[in-house]
């Protein structure tokens, strides 16, 4: 069953067509990837999915319900979490506080509860705390929970971002270039983590990535786009041997210049 279905999605800015009539879907429980050359419109697609951009037309169905033109925070509440291409941590806050942001949409205490520390509020805080620590433990950062986020090593900051996304208790996790800036060992850990998130937490994963090695290793289905259009879809092997994909990345063999 498709967890996410995108039909005929289009986005344009000031007459420039960033995405043109795009269709694809992500199966529940799968690890899917979106790839394409620079400027192909991948991050724009993520921004449409998560509500940061209003698509010009088209339909996005998540978990059976349309989420087009919903506000980002509502989409997150529906169970879609994302990470950012460039780290977007809350820099001056602690690691644990960062992760707690994810639980915001799964809790409800307001100012009155906070001021009077009602029973409900205290229990909720304890629940937030506990769950966030579990998330940190999952990515292996529990020991760093009280450190200020910006003081962590880059790779660890990336993991804080994942823990934060996990804390929203998503059904679908969108990862925007999760491997950017990671070294070889960290990439290996990332692959392992992605698999664990899917296998242990049963969270569907959809990622954009430039590191083809990583994409080929983890993804079950790869969608390739170029100029905002889908040019291929399939598993790693199919994609690697797809002439259109090779052309999109390496250029056409028969291009005559001189």
């Amino acid at each position, binding site marked *: 069953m498709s967890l996410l279905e995108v039909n005929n999605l289009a986005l344009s800015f*000031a007459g420039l067509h960033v995405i043109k009539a795009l269709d694809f879907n992500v199966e529940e429980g799968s690890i899917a990837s979106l790839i394409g050359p620079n400027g192909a419109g991948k991050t724009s697609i993520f921004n449409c999915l998560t509500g940061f951009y209003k698509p010009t037309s088209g339909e996005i169905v998540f978990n059976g319900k349309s989420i087009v033109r919903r506000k980002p925070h509502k989409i997150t509440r529906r169970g879609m979490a994302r990470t950012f291409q460039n780290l977007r941590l809350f820099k001056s806050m602690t690691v644990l506080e960062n992760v707690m942001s994810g639980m915001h949409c799964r809790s409800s205490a307001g100012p009155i509860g906070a001021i009077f520390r009602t029973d409900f509020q205290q229990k909720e805080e304890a629940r937030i705390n506990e769950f966030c620590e579990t998330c940190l433990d999952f990515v292996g950062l529990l020991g760093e929970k009280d450190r200020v986020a910006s003081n962590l090593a880059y790779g660890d900051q990336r993991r804080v971002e994942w823990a934060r996304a996990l804390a929203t208790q998503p059904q679908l996790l969108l990862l925007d270039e999760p491997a*950017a800036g990671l070294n070889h060992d960290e990439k290996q850990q990332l692959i392992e983590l992605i698999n664990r998130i899917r296998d242990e937490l049963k969270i569907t994963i959809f990622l954009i990535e430039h*590191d083809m090695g990583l994409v080929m290793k983890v993804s079950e289905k790869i969608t390739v786009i170029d100029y905002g259009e889908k040019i291929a879809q399939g598993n790693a092997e199919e994609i690697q041997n797809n002439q259109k*994909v090779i052309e999109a990345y390496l250029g056409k063999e028969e*291009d005559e210049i001189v």
Partner: protein
Amino acid sequence: MSNTILEIDNLETHYGKIHALRGISFTVREGQIVALLGANGAGKSTTLRAISGLIRSTSGAIRYMGDDITRTPAHDIVKKGLIHVPEGRKIFKGMTITENLELGSFTLEDDAERKRRMDHVFEIFPILYERRTRDSAFLSGGEQQMLAMGRSMMTNPKLLLLDEPSMGLAPFLVQQIMKIVLRLNKEGVTILLVEQNAKVALKLADHGYVLETGEIVIRGDAKTLQQDESIVKAYLGE
């Protein structure tokens, strides 16, 4: 053998905590076209930005025509004839084509010379002449690329750094752009070309370097590289 125009020596850069370039070295000789290849995020654009002074390198040296320009501010580097045409063209949308070109010759005092160079640009890109009073925001992708290249030619460059001139362009436009690259080279401009479109780039280039995660992994003669299967792997993984 011609003179070395650009020499990169063990260059390292960081974006915050990301180690973007991990010590790369290469040279460009006068009159050559050198291709810098690699997948997205490999560090190609970073290399160009470091050379043109848009970002500071953390260590290593950049020498241009014998001068060390590692710490020279970007606007002074331009005066030496080293011009960078950035990724995404970065034309001045909201200004006309003529104005864009004029800004390309900002460092030039002589108005007659400016006129002469603009005529030359218009000769190479007749389409720009047709639309010279139009707002550049309404140009197509290919026209924008031509404008970006035309603008750089207004400075009379000796060394041109071209960052993905084919990006987002239809195939016939890619060919057109590449023809112009060749023409410029014939006019005596040395070119350092960053391309994702490896096939095209290697056809033009004399020399090629392939970057992977901030390091040069393959280097060699363009003709040899064209046959090298490992390039595909560098792009599409194993």
